[in-house]
Every structure is written in structure tokens, then in C-alpha cells.
């Protein structure tokens, strides 16, 4: 069974760069995609799936596995690339994103994609499911952890805070949640649409142990994750400061990266050119 792999900065850097290229290509073939929020969570996903989570792609439903819920389900393509390269399904399937009859829909669907632990897309709902999974782990006295990523825009949803209250009340120290705090939602900066700050204080006041990290730094994510897992008697929130569209020269830190249109082959090629990875064999 595979568990934690050794951390090699060069390998991880290259993996993140390759994933950005592959995800952009998936969206290029689809003609559109939620690029901004997929690029902002890649370092977190890679850390979870290659360094942290107790999982086995060959035995993907094993009861003792760690669970992961991508509550901001529109970042599905980032998770699909992660799962495919981690061995859950053929990487060739990645180019079927959003195609008729695909197993890789724009938003996560646990009935379609091997390795997805929870369907998500209607915002606010995934965190409740993660809380349910964590409660089940406590009842069954299993030592798996539940990880989740929620969006900053998603945190406007009341259900996030319903789940937050219950998780603290049930003392779910087997639950670690990241907020992908890229500071943008569809209609503009999060501070202008419906301000989240002081976000750390909000989570603290809900009874969570709260950490902040640089969501694109391997070291910062890893060290914070270890601290979060060590918390006893409380769920842990990691507010990951991220950059929407991180790593794409055209879209980085741009609100409009939320859902980009790639109308033709020329736009597709331009999108990819900006992400060139030397020696990448893809597809």
C-alpha cells in the first residue's frame, strides 16, 4: 500500500508545472474551464495526494483510507489531473473533460470519477459531507483523517457555517480543512462582494484551531498541515493564502480566470505556450 512518498522539491515543482500544462490542455480541448480556482489549489492537492494521505489507488475504497472532499467542486479538473497521475485512472481520459458522456464533468461526481470521495458543485455542501465522514470515523473508532478544501467565495454560503459549528461541537480533530483564499470570487474581489475578513477570527470564534499558510509553498503547506493534524479536540482550519490562476502569465491573480473561454485552436495554443514545460511528454 502506498502512503507517504519522499519529498523532492525538484520533482514536486515539476509535477505542479506539468499539471498546470495538462489542466490548461484539458480546458483547451473542452473550450472552457475554471482555471483560476484549479491553479490556486494545486500545491495543496499534490501535497495531500503525494505526501500526506493514506490512500491506495489499487484499493480505492478501503475503509481505513483518508478521505478528501473538494467542496469547491468547480476546481474538479485539478483533482482529476491529480487522481489520474496518482494512478486512479488512465491519464488519457483527462482530455475527455466536459465532453459528451465523459466521466470527468466540470464539477466533481463521485459516481463517475474513480477516487472522488464526494460529489460537490453546489457550493457549501461538501463541507457538511466531510463533517459526516469525520463523525463516522469517530463513531467507528477508525483513525483516518478527513481533508477538505473549501473556496473563499464558497464561504459566503450559510451551510459552511452550519457545518463549522457542528464540527467544533463534535470535537472533530480528524478533520482538516483548507480555505483556498485566493481573494476572488466570480463577481469580483471577495472583500468587495461580501467581505470575509477577518476570516481567521471568524473560524477561531467558531471553535476551530486556525492556521495560515502560503498555499503555494511546499514547506509552508506541509509544516502547517502537520500542526493542524496534531490538534486535539478541535477541527483545524488552514487558511491558505493562494493566488487565483497561479502560474499562468495571462490569468494569474485575475478575477476573470474563474471560468475562461478558449474559443478556438489559436486560443488553446496561446494558453499552452505560456505554460511550456521542457521535455514534457503529453498527452
Amino acid at each position, binding site marked *: 500500500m502506498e502512503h507517504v512518498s519522499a519529498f523532492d522539491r525538484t520533482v514536486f515543482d515539476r509535477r505542479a508545472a506539468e499539471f498546470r500544462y495538462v489542466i490548461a490542455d484539458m480546458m483547451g480541448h473542452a473550450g472552457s474551464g475554471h482555471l483560476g480556482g484549479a491553479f490556486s489549489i494545486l500545491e495543496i492537492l499534490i501535497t495531500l495526494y503525494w505526501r500526506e494521505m493514506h490512500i491506495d489507488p489499487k484499493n480505492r475504497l478501503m475503509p481505513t483510507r483518508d478521505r478528501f472532499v473538494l467542496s469547491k467542486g468547480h476546481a474538479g479538473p485539478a483533482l482529476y489531473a491529480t487522481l489520474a497521475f496518482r494512478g486512479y485512472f488512465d491519464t488519457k481520459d483527462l482530455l475527455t473533460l466536459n465532453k459528451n458522456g465523459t466521466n470527468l464533468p466540470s464539477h466533481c461526481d463521485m459516481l463517475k470519477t474513480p477516487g472522488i470521495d464526494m460529489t460537490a458543485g453546489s457550493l457549501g455542501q461538501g463541507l457538511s459531507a466531510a463533517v*459526516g465522514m469525520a463523525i463516522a470515523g469517530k463513531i467507528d473508532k477508525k483513525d483516518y483523517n478527513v481533508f477538505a478544501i473549501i473556496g473563499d467565495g464558497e464561504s459566503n454560503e450559510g451551510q459552511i457555517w452550519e457545518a463549522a459549528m457542528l464540527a467544533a461541537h463534535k470535537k472533530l480533530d480528524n478533520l482538516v480543512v483548507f480555505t483556498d483564499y485566493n481573494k476572488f470570487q466570480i463577481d469580483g474581489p471577495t472583500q468587495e462582494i461580501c467581505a470575509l475578513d477577518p476570516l481567521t477570527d471568524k473560524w477561531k470564534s467558531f471553535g476551530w484551531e486556525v492556521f495560515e499558510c502560503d498555499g503555494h509553498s511546499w514547506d509552508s503547506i506541509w509544516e502547517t498541515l502537520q500542526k493542524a493534524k496534531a490538534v486535539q479536540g478541535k477541527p483545524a482550519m488552514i487558511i491558505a493564502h493562494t493566488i487565483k490562476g497561479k502560474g499562468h502569465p495571462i490569468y494569474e491573480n485575475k478575477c476573470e480566470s474563474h471560468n475562461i473561454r478558449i474559443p478556438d485552436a489559436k486560443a488553446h495554443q496561446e494558453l499552452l505556450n505560456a505554460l511550456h514545460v521542457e521535455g514534457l511528454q503529453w498527452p
Partner: protein
Amino acid sequence: MSLHEKEMRQVYAETLVEIISQNPNVMVLEADLSKASGTPPVAKAHPSNFLDVGVAEANMMGVAAGLASCGKIPFAATFTPFATRRACDQVTISIAYAKRNVKVIGTSPGITATSNGGTHMCFQDLAIMRAMPNMIVLSPCDVYELRSMLHWMAATEGPMYMQLLRMKEPKIFDENYKFIPGKAVQIREGNAATIVTTGYTTRWAIEAANALQAQGISVDILHYPMIKPFDTQSLVASAKKTGYVITVENQNILGGLGSAVCETLSEQYPVKVKRMGVHDVFGEVATEDYLLNKHEFSANHIKAAVLENVKNKI
């Protein structure tokens, strides 16, 4: 005390206590209405199988979906409007779309919300839940059916919605009754009309049939404990015999039982259908009697509808 002397909610709780003893994966979820649902005995007997999430129905449905993903079988109950209207998208996406093994329970359906009034009186739940793919829709009429149905629900994988009358209901079946999924139950046999009911309205159809019997008029009563999937065969067979169908439902006639009947008959065997129930208005604070008469689906109204058809035939 015989089973039928108990309130429906008491039997709901006692049956779940029994089911949990046999299957520790079954759980009872509440959103601060445990006393109303009658489930404190479950909390007492099986504390680790009981979860009260507080006044947060949306979260309850999502948590239920997460629990189900880890092998639990949650029965998540709240008043009907909150189970089906308020948490509609959570039930749709996290439970039905994701095919989670969650049993959603809507208590005090339709006019039985009485003194809770218009805000709590849901006339749309059957319409909402029927329109949800993957969702099985159930409505038991008495304690014997409720008990048998709960055992079947716990043993059967998949998302389900069940209406739960909370108070005492008259005995319709007995100890030997066994719920058969996908089948209507023929409660009376006759020729003058087919009366189609579910859950709460079955008792009124029986009362009407008894009164008609005294006048020498007999009717078919088809009670549907399962509204979806809908037993079309029994309906068509009865309609062929009687040529006239009356539907009686404890909710808006748009989208519920009457609609299911009309959808079937219009495609397979068109006969005249009279839909009795709430005619597209909201509820209000009132007694059951007042509401039955106001919305014209009491036993007397059902009887009158049958007699009207008999008279027209002569």
C-alpha cells in the same frame, strides 16, 4: 399496549431502536426536532447512533450524505417543509444525485401540521420528491405499515423519502402486514369508482367506503404506500373495471398523487379522474377537521364524489 394504540412517532422510534440493535450502522439524525419526531428513546438506547445537529437542516442532509459515504444508514428527520423545501438542493445534490443511502423523513405532512400553521404546512413535498431522480417516495398509513416499511428501508440501499404522520392513526392493517415495495394495496373492492390514496388520506377513503357500503355501493380503494416508483398496473386494472378514478391527497393536487395517476391513465387507459386535495393554496393555522372540510377531502367529500358519479351514470 397494542401497536395501534401508539402514536406513529413512538412506533417510528421503537422500530429504529430495534433496527439499530440488529444493524449498528443505522443512525437517527435530527435538527432540533427530536421530541417532535419522537426519537429521544433512540438517543437513550443507542446514544452513538443518534446525532442532533441543531437547527440546521441543510447541514443535516449534507452530514447524512457524508455518514452514508462511510457505511452509515442515516434516517434524517425534520418537519416536512424543512426536509423537502428548505433543504431541497442538499437533498437533491448531496443525497439523490450522489445516490447516498440516506432516508429523509418529513414529519407532520400536509394539514396534519395543524397548529403550526402556514409556514410549517407543506403541500408540495410529494411533488418535489417525485421530481427528484433516484428518490423513492413513501407514505405509510398506519403503525403496522410504518414498522414494516422502516425495516425494508433500512435493509434497502438508496435514497428515500418517507412522510411520517406523528400522531395516532386508526388501525388499517394488522400484525401480519408486510410492506411490498412497488405495489399498491387493494383495501376495498368494488365497481362504482376507484379511490386512490396514500398515507394520511387512506383512512378517509375507508370511512367513505364504509358509508357507501351501507347504501349498497362498493368501491375499489388502492392505497399507495410507495408513490414512486408508481404501481401503474394495479391502477390501470382497477380503472378498466370501474371507469372512474378519484385521487385523494394531503397536499397540492399539482404534482403529487393525483398527477401520478393522471400521468399513468392519460398514457395507458384514459378515464375520468377527479383529483381531491389542496387546490393550489397555502396552509393556515387550524384543526384537522376544519382543514379537511375547507380543502374538501374529508370522508363525506369523498363519499359525495362517488355518489355524484353514480348519479351521473343513471
